[in-house]
């Protein structure tokens, strides 16, 4: 059990870094929707991975039991986090590893840069890591005059093209092979000018390009998929062997990992290493997994560092309803089943963490009021496919609803200027509160017909309703409301002046 907390309860301290929407999700999504290549590639990718995943998942008779164990293990990790972190630290340190704690992105970046400088290095090789992307490490190192080389093929493509990843698993899925060839021809030193766009040739070009870097690198930077508290072991799961290169060849290895990645014990790995590859790439097992515990004399890096990162994780943990978002093992299954993600792609979410998990994790890490992240919990139809796919059973729809509530509360509490949504809601409640008011609103209907023009379609609505017309046209409203039509049709010539049933509303414009 974790020790009872006796100090002063502190306010949550949120995270910073690449975790934000810089524009509201609907706006970003609209732009990305215009990217037909992205949509086609993404549709193909999500479908393919989804099918592969289903096939390998249905092979296991005990999939549901594994999910349930995974969920319970992660829940117990969160409940015991302080104790497990201390246990991990003791074990990792006892075997020669060095642990650094970073409150936020800025502190983590400074620690990593200082460690690199200590080695007299001005470049590092990197293996794909969402944590370092979250803290904006590459950009920071560049400012500091340190070159960071991404070595994962997709990350290399994205980095060479000065672009951003669009999918956490296949970050360059928005690029076609011919574009990849063009990027290599343009950006890769000494590349064969006859390079074709065959994926095998492109992979070979990347191999040749990075080989010298791997063999001469003095410092590598990695993330970690798991950390085992009872042994002090770290694990990296990968496919290409660039991870093995980074984790084995340089003298100095710096790993950046969120505090939530712990597992209590060695035997827990048997659960997660069955859940992760099948949920992620749809493989029975990924090609390579590396495990290391501090320093192994005479084998691999002799300076081994780990930066343990908070950056908003403790704030997410403080949200009782939302804390299970920290159970995420970044498999991307929820993205591949999400109808919203399939169409918009990862860029629309702004943050390092896209898709359904990003829609809850980003605002939990940054606070719901940060920049435009309050729009993220609305980037879902609440269909529940993500929950069914999630290997650790994170109830994403429930947390989305919870965060929508937080968003509404925070806007009220902060007495922000009433938003269009608030005004719209107010107007609706006024209109619906009495038949008379509704009648007044209905009188405006012919104005709508004017806005629609001769083709009877409204293509642009102002303000918040504009979001709706950005991707579809709405038919012009009819000239008469139902109630106006009813009155007109049912006006018996000899009816008494005070007709019953329709009340007093809607009669004003009747002759």
């Amino acid at each position, binding site marked *: 059990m*974790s020790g*009872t*907390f006796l*100090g002063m309860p502190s306010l*949550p301290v949120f995270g910073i870094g690449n975790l934000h929407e810089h524009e509201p999700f609907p706006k970003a999504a609209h732009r990305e929707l215009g990217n037909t290549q992205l949509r086609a590639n993404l549709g193909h990718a999500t479908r393919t*991975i989804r099918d592969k995943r289903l096939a390998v998942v249905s092979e296991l*008779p005990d999939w549901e*039991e594994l999910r349930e*164990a995974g969920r*319970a293990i992660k*829940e*117990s990790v*969160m*409940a015991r986090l*302080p104790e497990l*972190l*201390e246990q991990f630290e003791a074990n990792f340190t006892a075997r020669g590893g060095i642990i*650094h704690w*970073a*409150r936020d992105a800025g502190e983590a970046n400074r620690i990593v840069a200082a460690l690199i400088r200590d080695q007299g290095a001005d470049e590092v090789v990197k293996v794909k890591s969402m944590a370092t992307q979250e803290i904006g490490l590459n950009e920071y190192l560049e400012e500091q005059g340190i070159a960071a080389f991404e*070595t*994962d*093929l*997709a990350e290399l*493509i994205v980095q060479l093209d000065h672009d951003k990843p669009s999918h956490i698993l*296949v970050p*360059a*899925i928005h690029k*076609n092979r011919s574009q*990849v060839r063009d990027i290599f021809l343009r950006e890769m030193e000494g590349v064969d000018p006859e390079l074709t766009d065959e994926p095998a040739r*492109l*992979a070979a070009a990347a191999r040749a390009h990075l080989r010298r870097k791997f*063999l001469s690198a003095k410092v590598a930077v990695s993330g970690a998929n798991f950390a*085992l508290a009872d*042994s002090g*072991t770290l694990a990296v799961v990968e*496919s*290409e*062997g*660039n991870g*093995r*290169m980074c984790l*084995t060849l340089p003298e100095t290895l710096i790993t950046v990992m969120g505090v939530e990645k712990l597992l209590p014990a*060695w*035997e*827990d790995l*048997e659960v997660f290493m*069955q859940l992760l590859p099948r949920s992620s790439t749809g493989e029975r*097992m990924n*090609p*390579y997994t*590396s*495990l290391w*515990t501090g320093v*192994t004399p*005479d*084998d*691999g890096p002799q300076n081994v560092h780990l930066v343990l990162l*908070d950056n908003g994780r403790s704030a997410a*943990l403080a949200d009782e309803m939302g804390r299970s978002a920290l159970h995420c093992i970044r498999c991307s299954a929820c993205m591949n089943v999400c109808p919203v993600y399939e169409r918009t792609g990862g860029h629309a979410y702004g943050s390092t963490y896209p898709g359904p998990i990003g829609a809850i994790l980003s605002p939990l890490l940054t606070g719901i009021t940060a920049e435009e992240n309050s729009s993220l919990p609305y980037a879902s139809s609440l269909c529940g496919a993500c929950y069914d796919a999630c290997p650790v059973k994170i109830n994403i729809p429930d947390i989305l609803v919870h965060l929508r509530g937080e968003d509404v509360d925070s806007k009220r509490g902060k007495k922000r200027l009433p938003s269009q949504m608030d005004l719209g809601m107010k107007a609706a409640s006024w209109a619906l509160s009495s038949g008379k008011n509704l009648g007044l609103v209905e009188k405006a209907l012919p104005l709508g017909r004017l806005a629609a023009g001769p083709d009877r379609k409204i293509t642009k609505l102002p303000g918040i309703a504009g979001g709706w017309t950005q991707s579809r046209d709405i038919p012009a409203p009819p000239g008469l409301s139902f109630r106006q039509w009813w009155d007109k049709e049912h006006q018996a010539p000899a009816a008494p002046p005070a007709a019953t049933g329709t009340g007093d509303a809607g009669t004003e414009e009747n002759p």
Partner: protein
Amino acid sequence: MNARTEILDRIRSALRDAPAVPDVPRDYRRSSALGEEELIELLTDRLLDYKANVFVEEAATVPQRLAALLESTGRYAVPHGLDQALFAEADAHDAGSRRVTDAPGHRLSVEELDGVDAVVTGSAVAVAETGTIILDAGPDQGRRVISLVPDRHICIVRAGEITAILPEALRRLDATRPQTWISGPSATSDIELERVEGVHGPRTLDVVIVRG
């Protein structure tokens, strides 16, 4: 306050509702009852699926197999703890002149490893269901780097090392030894999701499974 204290305080504060620590239901499969032949068959099937090459041998035929696999190769590396008798047949042709050994006190440099065509190692344990071979840097497997840099990895898996499922394999391993889990040659699907075998790790994986 230093970062460590502050982060741990923040986390304790976040948990002031004292959430319950749930029992972990381990109702998933933790053992199996496959015989040696079934295990070999399953492992072979999975490895072939990953585009590895698989050869099932009797103990007595391993030297011939290795000689055949190494025939077209130039120099190859081995860890000091690998039984030299396995190379009796290969040595008959070249008197061991192509073999370089990585041993304590005589470590192969990364450049030397980059200059060899292949590496031959043993393995610690294998998982049939997932087609996974696990190396734990034992004397017949060597340092992690030797099975990484050469472009071809010839890996010897003894039948007794094969388990059916992952939980059985982990029980035989020590977490603190450096481990490499290998499931096929290196691969990527990063370009239009088309799988390409062989990126940075060895592009060819030959697995010699030894019965008995």
